[in-house]
């Protein structure tokens, strides 16, 4: 899966689960200010991503620091590369 496909799959999963307009899911979009996601949504997002990509995130301290889509894409791509290595 290419990085672009990974990004598209992430956007589709989040748009469906959080009932978000997919056009809002841009790299610059902030979870709180632009997408209106709260702390409870952040916990659910981890579950959605784990289920969608078969990766283990759990309570990874790196995920707590992510506040926008660009950082989330980079995190998922890194996780997938770790799995492939």
């Amino acid at each position, binding site marked *: 899966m290419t990085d672009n496909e990974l990004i598209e799959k992430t956007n589709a999963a989040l748009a469906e689960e959080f*009932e978000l307009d997919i056009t809002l899911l841009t790299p610059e979009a902030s979870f709180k200010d632009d997408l209106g996601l*709260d702390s*409870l*949504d952040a916990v659910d997002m981890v579950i*959605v991503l784990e289920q969608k990509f078969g990766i283990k995130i759990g309570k990874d301290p790196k995920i707590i620091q992510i506040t926008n889509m660009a950082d989330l894409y980079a995190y998922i791509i890194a996780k997938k590369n770790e799995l492939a290595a």
Partner: protein
Amino acid sequence: MSSQPKNRMPKKTFMDALPKIAAFLRELFCNAGFYTGFVLLTLLTIIVSPPVYLVLRLIGTHDSGQAVRRIIWFYGKGWVWLIARFVPFHMTMDDPQDYPQSCIVVANHLSFFDAFCLGTLPMYNLVFAVRSWPFKIPFYGPYMHRAKYLNTERMSYEDFLNQAKERLNQHMTMIIFPEGTRSTNGELGRFHSGAFKLAMETGTPIVPVSISGTDRFLPKGKLWVKPHPITITILPPADPKLFAHFGPLAHRTMSKYVRDLIAQHSTPSTTCNTDCVHLSENPIPQGE
């Protein structure tokens, strides 16, 4: 020389303007009557609160919070009676016996007066989860504090969950507007999932309530009310146990189910019955 015919606008007569004048007078009557009644109802509630509170405490059936919540419930009933004098007010629900006292009421949010519309609920031991600003309203704040309402902006989610659980254990009805704020365009917004997580964790049923028309009656940021019909639909309770098999995201599935139910029973804000005239809107030009 032949003179060219001029395009002249037809002269408006008094008779043409009559429907608009009648609609304006109707709105004026509605505002004067409603706000006078609203102020009198509020003053009356403030005056009778202390003796009613004492009676409820002395007969021993109510603790302090319960007594205040009962007074607020009477106030809500009074508001529903008042508003029905000025606009068509419709409420539908199943048999009141079908609704448990300990439940989570989830409603869409269109206007400041939505909370008052919930005076139609068959439950009376109501606790609202609201943001900070309603606690600052003169007269309301002290009642809200004494009724143990939850200020969601002043607590973490974990605190909210613990305090809401405590109130549900005491057979109170939690009222939550899952959109978090009033809609500015009459459309149903995205639901936050806290109410549904609370329902799943405590096994408490959710009672969805669909509110229609209050956004046209009093839009967000306005004071001038419009005589627009209001409809409240109190839907049957949804049991969280039926969603448990959806796993760790069961609360989200329940949230989507309840949101769909509310959306199905909401009248779009753009619809307007024939006797509803909006003076602020420009008439649509009929051709060039």
